[in-house]
């Protein structure tokens, strides 16, 4: 096979995997604390819109990303309020957030539909590493800083989760909030923070799309990525390091579905990532204990003190 083809495929897979990675890292933290947030798609599109709007107005892409993070976190806090404080059904609230986000971003973005961004986030070339043959052009050229920050973040989040006091608290709250509560942990606060972090990262993932990957605004430009994130969280068995591989693998699938359009019907190819996501969920359902045991014990269940 042609080496150039491989190099560009890997390079684009990385670029396309970035929003998936950021979103998945966020969802992992939310779910580790016991809260499912199906609103990832909504938070991403709101992030994409806010990122574009601010970057376009101010002309500074970094500020766009900051806005995306803030808007994502704010949307997630709404989910946290409904599900943690009011103990609403997490799945319903998350779905509502997705529909709301898609609708609101579409409405606000009308005037900007199809517009390219004035100043996109630039690609960088990693000095030194870019010179390595084959690997250099694959991994260290033509990426934005968010690719590397995402990987670094995954490592940091892994260390926090499994090697620090905070990690013990977060995992305990997700496994057994009653235990954490009885030891004086503020379950509500931990869940709010984790859900907010989830939204923040999803927002950045969305912002990346409109500010860096395809610097423009199109309604519905997240194109179902939020749903892939939900599947990836399970695929990665709630482990930030595994999320790296998962995200870039799905990035490759997305990219290949563009690449192979010459040979296979494009409708079929566009299905590929989703078909794969369904497959992952089916396998994780069937595979039984090994996969399921890792799901946080009280995922999806609101915590009520003293309930018997």
């Amino acid at each position, binding site marked *: 096979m042609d080496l150039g083809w491989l190099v560009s495929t890997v390079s684009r897979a990385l670029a396309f995997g970035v929003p998936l990675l950021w979103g998945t890292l966020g969802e992992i933290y939310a779910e580790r604390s016991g809260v499912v947030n199906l609103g990832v798609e909504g938070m991403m599109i709101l992030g994409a819109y806010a990122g574009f709007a601010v970057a376009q107005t101010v002309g500074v892409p970094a500020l766009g990303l900051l806005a995306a993070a803030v808007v994502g976190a704010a949307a997630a806090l709404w989910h946290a309020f409904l599900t943690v404080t009011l103990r609403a059904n997490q799945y319903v609230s998350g779905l509502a957030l997705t529909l709301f986000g898609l609708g609101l971003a579409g409405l606000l973005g009308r005037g900007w539909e199809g517009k390219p961004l004035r100043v996109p986030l630039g690609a960088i070339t990693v000095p030194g590493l870019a010179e390595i043959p084959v690997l250099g052009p694959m991994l260290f050229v033509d990426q934005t800083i968010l690719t590397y920050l995402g990987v670094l973040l995954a490592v940091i989040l892994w260390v926090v989760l499994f*090697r*620090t*006091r*905070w990690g*013990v*608290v977060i*995992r*305990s709250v997700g*496994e*057994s909030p*009653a*235990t*954490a*509560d*009885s*030891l*004086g*942990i503020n379950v509500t606060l931990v869940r709010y923070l984790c859900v907010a972090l989830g939204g923040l990262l999803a927002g950045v993932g969305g912002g990346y799309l409109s500010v860096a990957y395809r610097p423009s605004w199109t309604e519905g430009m997240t194109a179902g990525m939020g749903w892939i994130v939900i599947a990836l969280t399970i695929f990665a068995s709630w482990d930030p390091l595994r999320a790296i591989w998962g995200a870039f693998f799905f990035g490759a699938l997305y990219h290949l579905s563009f690449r192979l359009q010459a040979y296979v019907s494009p409708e079929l190819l566009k299905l590929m990532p989703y078909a794969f996501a369904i497959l992952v969920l089916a396998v994780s359902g069937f595979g*039984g*204990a090994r996969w399921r*045991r890792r799901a946080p*014990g009280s995922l999806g269940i609101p915590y009520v*003190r*003293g309930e018997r």
Partner: protein
Amino acid sequence: MRAAAGSGHPDGPPESPHLIRLEEVTKSFPGVTANDRVTFEVRPGEVHALLGENGAGKTTLVNILYGLYRPDSGSIVVRGRRVAIRSPREAIALGVGMVHQHFKLVLPHTVAENAALGLPGTPFWAPARDVGRRLCALAERYGLPVDPDRRVWELSAGEQQRVEILKALLRGAQVLILDEPTSVLTPQETGELFKVLSRMREEGHGVIFISHKLTEVLEVADRITVMRRGRVVGTVAAAEANKPMLARMMVGREVVFRLTKAACTPGEAALSVEGIHVRNDRGLPAVRGATFHVCRGEIFGIAGIAGNGQRELVEALTGLRRIEQGKVRILGNEVTNRSPRFLADIGVAHVPEERIRMGIVPGLSVEENLILKRHHRPPFCRAGLLHLASVRRFAQGVIEEYGIVTSSPNTPAKLLSGGNIQKLILARELSGQPALVLAAHPTYGLDVGATEQIRDLLLRQRAGGAAVLLVSEDLEEVMELADRIAVMFRGEITGVVAGGEADREEIGLMMAGEERVRG
């Protein structure tokens, strides 16, 4: 009777300062006053038992002390200072530690991670390593050996309890609350726990020991406070108390300790189980090659700590769980993996472990619940329609016969008290004259009166020639009712002994899997 609160001061002078004191504490839930002007205190270096039947309000009281519930009125005094305990964190800061009836542990985590959770002063990085070291030092001092790196779900109930005690000590608990700590222990483990409690007494801790078992309370406590229906009946020194007196205070009337039980005249085998293997919900082996038989006219008891395969065994015998290997015969029919409906139709009665979840349909009326097993057969069903008049007639009959207290046959079953729900289940199961009764924890959580009635019903089944399989965690109950006793440990029957000559110690050892006796 020397039963007025605060009257007897057997150990130490009357002015000896208390560690913690609850004064006139009242707490109501919708429909019940769980604690009614309760006054209770613990001094340093004493084990103070809180004795009462299920529902007396013991757990509620200590939950208030631990900041889980706020009292409606009354006050809490810690070392002479009035305090408000608004959360477990505040309770811990005041030196109160608690081992809950249902352990508060994160099962997938290690012992050290569990201990580190929320512990002030743990390092930010690698907290488990540091806490593990401190845990070992404490374990040494109090005689509570644990391995900090084991995952909690791998530990036995007794070991999990040790982790809970260590967690409290690690947080500097001066007052340690143990809510029904012996209910998950073998007699030997109970003995070890009592040694630990003596150790704590020597170190000057105050221990609140909750139980409804008289023998234990007399053995371990310095003082005993008895509660009944939310009120304190009295506080007595253990040295001056005895069983009948405590039983009277606890129940509010004279209690007969012996049931009348005729001699056993076993007939042919109604149930025979040959080497069955069953898996639990997680897909792991739960029953591993159990073999036994139960004869007509006998009660066959299965003792053992909960979680050793009893639940899976009963579910397999009632057709609710697949049998992977082995054979079950009932009344001569091979019935391995037949449906629950088939088994019910050939005369198997099932009194399930979780009476509300599996025993009744809470939203249906009492009469509807009473015909659940036979609604498809005459006289209740004619031409596919329910014949409501016969349903009503039948219901009124058994409500009378079994003494079910309900405002009407139309009342939703969930509104009944625990004892009456259980009587409803027994009425449904026993009224068809079953040949085999499978009863799982039939008196769990019931008061003394209801317990007596249920036991009497089982004995009457036995007298009437039914075979009764009785699964219970309550060793006293099994020893009192059963003609033969089998012990289950890790899915195996570790031994069968004759009921009359059963020895607590020996059964205790079998419950811990230590000895195999054939009888």
